[in-house]
């Protein structure tokens, strides 16, 4: 019984992450797949930590927003170059073409 307790204790220590490490993995998870053991540890921590669960939710929302602006929809462009800016760029291009 004692050895079993001991083993359980060791397993718990092995699986235990603090919030610093957990948020580190949560940040990594947004750009790369975690290793199997990393996601087990993370899930284990999130079960007992509501603040890191909140961090996870907010971090996912941040990613969602960045993902939505990553791809530009040509039919729904939020920003436009002004006519002046376009003329200015066109002038630069024209003079570049004339050099040739």
């Amino acid at each position, binding site marked *: 019984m004692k050895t079993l307790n001991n083993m359980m204790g060791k397993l718990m220590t092995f699986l235990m992450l*603090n*919030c610093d490490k957990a*948020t580190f993995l949560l*940040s990594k998870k947004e750009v790369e797949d975690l290793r199997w053991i990393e996601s087990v540890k993370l899930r284990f921590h999130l079960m007992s930590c509501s603040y890191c669960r*909140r961090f996870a939710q*907010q971090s996912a929302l*941040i990613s969602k927003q960045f993902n939505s602006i990553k791809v530009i929809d040509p039919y729904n462009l939020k920003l*436009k170059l002004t006519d002046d800016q*376009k003329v200015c760029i066109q002038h630069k291009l024209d003079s570049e073409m004339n050099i040739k």
Partner: protein
Amino acid sequence: MSDKQKIGKNDYHKLDPNSWVNNYGDYLYNYAYYRVNSKEVSEDIVQDTLIAALRAQNSFRGESTELTWLLSILKRKVIDYFRKLGSNKERTITDYTMPFRDEGIFEGHWLNNRLPREWSNEADSSLHQEEFAEILEICLSLLPDKWRSVFVLKFMEELSSDEVCKETGCTPSNFWVIMHRTRLKLRECIENKWLT
């Protein structure tokens, strides 16, 4: 013969530099803006891209569309921008402190005065979409240059970690530390702006 049939395969994807500004200017401008987060820089990047494209016309094989080709040049310009920004040592010094306890049995746990508060349910609603987008944009611009460079190249431009480090001069372990701190700082910045 219809017009469509008359156009041979070789006629597809030709370059027409005179139409670039009107046809693709705004698209390229938007693409650059959502990465570099500055209208002035974006305008410069669009201009540099089109000039570089003019000079490189011979390398266009016609296998991709004109826009795809221009975009590939623009993406290179964006990376160049972040390479310069990321290697700017003076402006990468940051006074950010981690929101975790650094000693005691609760080492690594959230500091009481830095505990994440709730705002994401509200921010996620379609009602507040624009407000959230604006705040995120401001918070992104408040990141140290190096962090922003690493974050945007990895997350928005989807470069590999190795490539990001090659461009911005970070080390592999440093890379993940920056990605972590960027998340922490972005999240906290949004929270402070959202709840005040």
